[in-house]
């Protein structure tokens, strides 16, 4: 048969139609079989932010004893995604509370089975959760001048704490630490203050101005608050300055000392060790300082190795240092585990953009 006859044959029509119709099938691989976990004992949760607007945040779990790493445990245990930008995790009792910033939700999970036990929905842009007691917790927000009060036992929002003199749309409250009946919180984005909240009245009772954009807050063994500012950026209406480490007396709520870094530095992730006598932070390298030091260290604790350090924690039991490398922020990040004197012990891959850690006691 010549080509002309072949092409003009009417038999070609059903053949072509069949070919096209066969192309209607599609492979899809959502897994629906939930895995069963039961992992008692001590461990480390790593929240991996994922990429903004991708909804690919994940939760990893690491056992320092066995070096076993479990990735994507939230999905594997629950058959659903964790969400978009997992910001932080806090353990209270036998539950872990994962704050998923751009999903406007906080998930509560059983810390041994990773199974969801409940969730708090419809938050503005949640960042951190702090437990006052079993029936009251505070949730800080970005782009909101309110801290949400929630009842963890009912997974409900019960009220708000309005921050005085903080603009509504550009409000920012971040990390919280407790001292006595007060909670101290750093106000980061386009802000420059630490606020003091009375947990009995749920009101802001004091405010302390520090440098531009305090990124984090911790409390040491001497009841000194420490905060680390990032200095803003060139062109910011709030100003652009050299970042600084502030020591604040929790009792008097006054600044005791300021350790100034270099203009252009990008410090973040201020942490303490388990004893509360050493501070750690990121500034390209990993830095460490005794809480009684009178000046900043001149040598880093760990030098970067073309790494993009993004998250940091110190094992409260062993004082080992864990630092997260986000690499290019589009692949599984790497966690490096170092001994207290800076020797590499282990390294393991987790999820995309590992940003924060949570120790399971």
């Amino acid at each position: 048969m010549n080509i002309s006859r072949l092409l003009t044959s009417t038999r070609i029509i059903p053949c072509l139609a069949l070919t096209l119709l066969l192309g209607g099938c599609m492979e899809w691989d959502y897994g629906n079989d939930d895995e069963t976990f039961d992992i008692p004992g001590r461990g480390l949760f790593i929240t991996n932010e994922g990429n903004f607007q991708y909804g690919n945040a994940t939760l990893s779990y690491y056992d320092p004893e066995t070096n076993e790493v479990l990735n994507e445990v939230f999905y594997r245990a629950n058959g659903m995604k964790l969400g978009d930008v997992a910001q932080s995790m806090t353990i209270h009792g036998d539950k872990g509370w994962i704050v998923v910033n751009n999903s406007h939700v906080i998930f509560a999970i059983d810390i041994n089975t990773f199974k969801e036990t409940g969730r708090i929905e419809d938050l503005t842009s949640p960042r951190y959760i702090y437990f006052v007691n079993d029936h009251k917790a505070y949730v800080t927000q970005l782009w909101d001048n309110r801290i949400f009060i929630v009842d963890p036992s009912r997974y409900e929002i019960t009220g708000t704490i309005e921050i005085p003199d903080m603009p509504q749309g550009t409000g920012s409250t971040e990390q919280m630490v407790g001292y006595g009946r007060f909670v101290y919180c750093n106000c980061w984005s386009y802000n420059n203050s630490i606020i003091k909240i009375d947990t009995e009245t749920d009101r802001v009772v004091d405010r302390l101005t520090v440098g531009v954009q305090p990124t984090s807050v911790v409390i040491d063994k001497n009841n000194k608050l420490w905060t680390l500012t990032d200095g803003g950026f060139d062109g910011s209406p709030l100003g652009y300055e050299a970042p600084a480490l502030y020591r604040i007396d929790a009792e008097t709520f006054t600044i005791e000392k300021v350790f100034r870094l270099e203009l252009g530095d990008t410090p973040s992730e201020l942490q303490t060790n388990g004893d509360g006598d050493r501070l750690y932070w990121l500034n390209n390298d990993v830095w460490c300082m005794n809480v009684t030091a009178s000046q900043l260290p001149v040598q880093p604790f760990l030098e970067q190795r073309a790494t993009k350090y993004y998250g940091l924690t110190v094992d409260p039991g062993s004082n080992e240092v864990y630092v997260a490398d986000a690499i290019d922020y589009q692949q599984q990040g790497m966690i490096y585990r170092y001994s207290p004197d800076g020797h590499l012990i282990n390294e393991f891959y987790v999820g995309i953009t590992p940003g924060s850690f949570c120790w399971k006691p």
Partner: protein
Amino acid sequence: MTMHNATMKYLSIIILLVFSSLCMKAETLHKQLRQVQVTARRPMKEIGVQKTAFDSLTLKENIALSMADVLTYNSSVFVKSYGRATLSTVAFRGTSPSHTQVTWNGMRINNPMLGMTDFSTIPSYFIDQASLLHGTSSVNETGGGLGGLVKLGTLPDVPDGLNAQYVQGIGSFSTFDEFARLTYGNDHWQSSTRFVYSSSPNDYKYINHDKKVNIYDENKNIIGQYHPTERNRSGAFKDMHLLQEIYYNTLRGDRFSLNAWYINSNRELPMLTTDYGNEHKFENRQREQTFRSVVTWDHNRSNWKTGIKVGYIHSWVAYDYRREITTDNWSSMTRSRSRVNTVYGQADGEYSPNRKWYFTANISAHQHFVRSEDKNVILQDGEKAIVGYDMSRIEISGSASAKWRPIDRLGMSVVLRQDMYGDRWAPVIPAFFIDGIISPVGNVMLKASISRNHRFPTLNDMYFLPGGNPDLKNEHGFSYDAGLSFDTGREGRFTLGGGVSWFDSYINDWIIWLPTTKGFFSPRNVKKVHAYGIEVNANLAVTPADGWLIDLHGSYSWTPSVNEGEKMSPADMSVGKQLPYVPRNSASVTGRLSWKTWSFLYKWAYYSERYTMSSNDYTISGHLPPYFMSNISLEKGLSFKPADIQLKLAVNNLFNEDYLSVLSRPMPGINFEFFIGITPKFSKSKKNYTDL
């Protein structure tokens, strides 16, 4: 028949194919199949050029289509989109969206802030001629097209006298599309006014596999969970387009035209599948008002021609992200505004001293004035502050080319292009093209080209606040391609054509935006990318019997796009891996079966797996499964004394596939739209609009 006549016959069939292309109506094509004339010669301007042209029936298949839809089903370009009226960008030959240049009537319309073009904002009904210039071939028109160029334009092709057309589409999810066109034409003057308005709540249902709904007991213990069936939340859109064209032809070699296009778009940005916010308490909305205009003068003589274009673009884009604090009390979290004003000028000249030589020269300038602001920063003292930038930049591009055809079967072309952005000059972009007919039987043609190319950082790349990086280097690289094509046919019975091409390009200093520890993103030159692959296309038009037409077009591309840069960190696993969101394999098939005034169209597209991570990890969210998509439509034309009526039913996602094109963005299942078109018969016209 002499060899020359035979060659010319086959050449004319190619020309015929280009014009008739793939989705031609039966009657029209049938006529053309019988009108094969031995008259044509390959255009000198297209020596060695890899080009995909879309015919008017493809562009005007229905009024609800955007150029994103046309590219999806009629080319192997990957269109990244998450539904109708959402940001739709392309990956052309494995490159990023900003590596595809887009021109409209000669004027570049890429957003100077972002570098890319949103194809969902270009209704295909407003485009009369469209083509893709692949890779190197884009250097003939503009610089910076590392992936290629999408060339769009309008034509003064209107019937004589006063004519009108009105089409309405009513579809699923309360979708309404309106199109109206009023034209007037005579020997000298042509005027066309086109109007499109589309609106929809776009709240299609889907099963949310990413989320579960909890069932609690009275003590707040979870006693059950299920994946909910949800509606697409916050996906409504209202888009209006108005296009006015006026053409004047002196009939003595001079032609003047004015094109003015106004867009008013108001779109919500859909919520992610993993969003647990209340859709009624959040607003995520983008509004756009854009005006584009071009005035053209073309002066044609027997062996030379020249042209001048001047144009102006104004674009205002607002993005608002708001939260309801208390009833009717909304707090603005993001309130960004950008305003772009672009003044454009271009001069072209072409000269052909004889049949063997052809020279062209071109210079264009785009002067951008950009103001980008986030007006929502309110300081603690209550003062409002603006974070943003206010910059201007001139972008000049000039080129000269010489094309030589020593014998009819061989052609060569050299292009030299020089680009200047702001105060930066890029090295000269050289390009060389060659083609030759290696067999007159089947008109088998070999084409090859090579070029160096550059792309300047966009204004946001350099100046966006916070994060802009004024120290960025240009992206640059080499591109090569070679291809083989053939065309054959039998007068009045069938035409068959196809081609295969191989391309290979290296792009250095690839710019990507990365997060910083300060909470914002910043761009850096980080990657070296090797994008290569094969593109195949084939088309067939057959008239098996009188009144019948089968018309098929297919394309396939294999596009590895591999990161070959240095490791960014000792643990980096991305080197040697496919870039995220670039499928290795993609294909499309369009088939039309026509019988008299009936026409049935089947459109099919396939994309292979896309990775979402640079390391190509096969994690739960690290990849998107491959998918096939099928759309059909059935059309019937009716002719009455006062008007022609066209009826059409389109079915999208025929097999109700549950699929994702972008992570966490659900796509609609099977959906329908019915169109009715009315073309009044005001007077005896040479032709009327009959396409729906």
